[in-house]
């Protein structure tokens, strides 16, 4: 289509004319350029059609109510708007409108989130310290050679007898009257119950003593 356009002058063809059409219709072209364009449009039917298209769009905007949107009541400033703005300006308000203030309110939980993060971090650090301390205390209370000393094995019969004899001797020294009975083998400690208790006690002592 462009090829069918005319070159009305050596330097001013359709390629130069078309981009100038909107500026021409807007009254923004210098008289010199407007003159060239007018001359071209007179001779070039396709460019003339393009200019008419542009005019049609311009008419559309004119019908849209150029400059009238602000006059519609729902978009008009409320009563006392100017006085309020002037008052706020002189009070030092630099343009933080209510929307920003609302955003600041919405930022509240984010601040709370930071506090929560701090508390959680602190708790985690405290837990770590307690864990280290517990491990250290545990290591301290463990036997140095790493072997467990407590045992559930009953003491041997021989060791029990040896201990009993030692006890008998000690009691004989403390209560001479009883030594005779002991020597006769009638001492009540020889009962299975007493022996068992002694054995258990001995076993615990063994475990603690080693």
């Amino acid at each position, binding site marked *: 289509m462009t090829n069918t356009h005319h070159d009305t002058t050596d330097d001013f063809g359709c390629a130069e004319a*078309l*981009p100038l059409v909107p500026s021409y219709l807007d009254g923004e072209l210098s008289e010199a350029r407007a003159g060239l364009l007018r001359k071209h449009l007179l001779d070039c039917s396709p460019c003339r059609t393009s200019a008419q298209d*542009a005019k*049609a769009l311009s008419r559309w905007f004119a*019908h849209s109510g150029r400059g009238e949107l602000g006059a519609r009541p729902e*978009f008009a400033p409320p009563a006392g708007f*100017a006085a309020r703005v002037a008052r*706020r*300006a002189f009070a030092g308000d*630099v343009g933080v409108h209510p929307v920003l203030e609302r955003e600041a309110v919405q930022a509240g939980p984010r601040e709370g989130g930071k506090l929560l993060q701090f508390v959680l971090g602190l708790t985690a650090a405290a837990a770590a310290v307690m864990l280290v301390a517990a491990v250290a205390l545990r290591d301290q209370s463990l036997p140095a050679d790493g072997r467990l000393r407590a045992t559930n094995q009953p003491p041997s019969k021989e060791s029990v007898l040896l201990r009993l004899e030692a006890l008998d001797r000690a009691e004989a020294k403390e209560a001479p009257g009883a030594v005779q009975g002991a020597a006769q083998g009638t001492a009540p400690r020889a009962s299975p119950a007493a022996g068992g208790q002694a054995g258990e006690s001995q076993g615990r002592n063994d475990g603690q003593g080693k």
Partner: protein
Amino acid sequence: MGAILKMQPAAREDVSLVAETLSGNQLSFQLLVERYQDRMFGLVRHYTRNPVEIEDIVQDTFLKAFARLASFQQQSSFYTWLCRIAINTALDFHKRHGRNPVQSVEDPELTQGAEGASGMGGGARAERTGRSPAVQAPDARMEQREIQAITHRVLEELPEIFRTVLVLREFEDMAYQDMADVLGISIGTVESRLFRARARFKEKLLQLHPEFGEN
């Protein structure tokens, strides 16, 4: 002083009000707000439909303007300067709320060609290579509010940079130089961006509402 005398009366009044505000006159700032509040509400309305949000953004815009008033250079008009703050505030608002409008980096048309004073992007090339149906002027019986709703819906579908140039030009009736000042770009870039924005608007309008295409 000579520069001030060359200004339009409205611009001279703005300069006076700014100076009085800077010297501590609260009423002067209130007058500045009253002077531009309607236009600011109209502009911001293209970035959100929620009236509460519109009010918040416009209020924020004026408060920011007050805080930076000492840095206001009289090279551009007060309104142009205010527009720049309002657009940035509206876009920041969307970012903060995770409501990112269609971004330029996601727009394949923008990544195709360099955008510059002389460059026209894919939209311009498409316009040259084939003619899509023209947009019909809306039926006179159509309610203006209905047309506005359609226009707004189409604008919402456009990448933010296209939407902004269309809003500044088609609704704020801003001159190219003022648009360049607001957006911090060259006039050539304004031209090319506007060209592509219109092409995209038309394409999207006809896609959503083919009934508005010329038969």
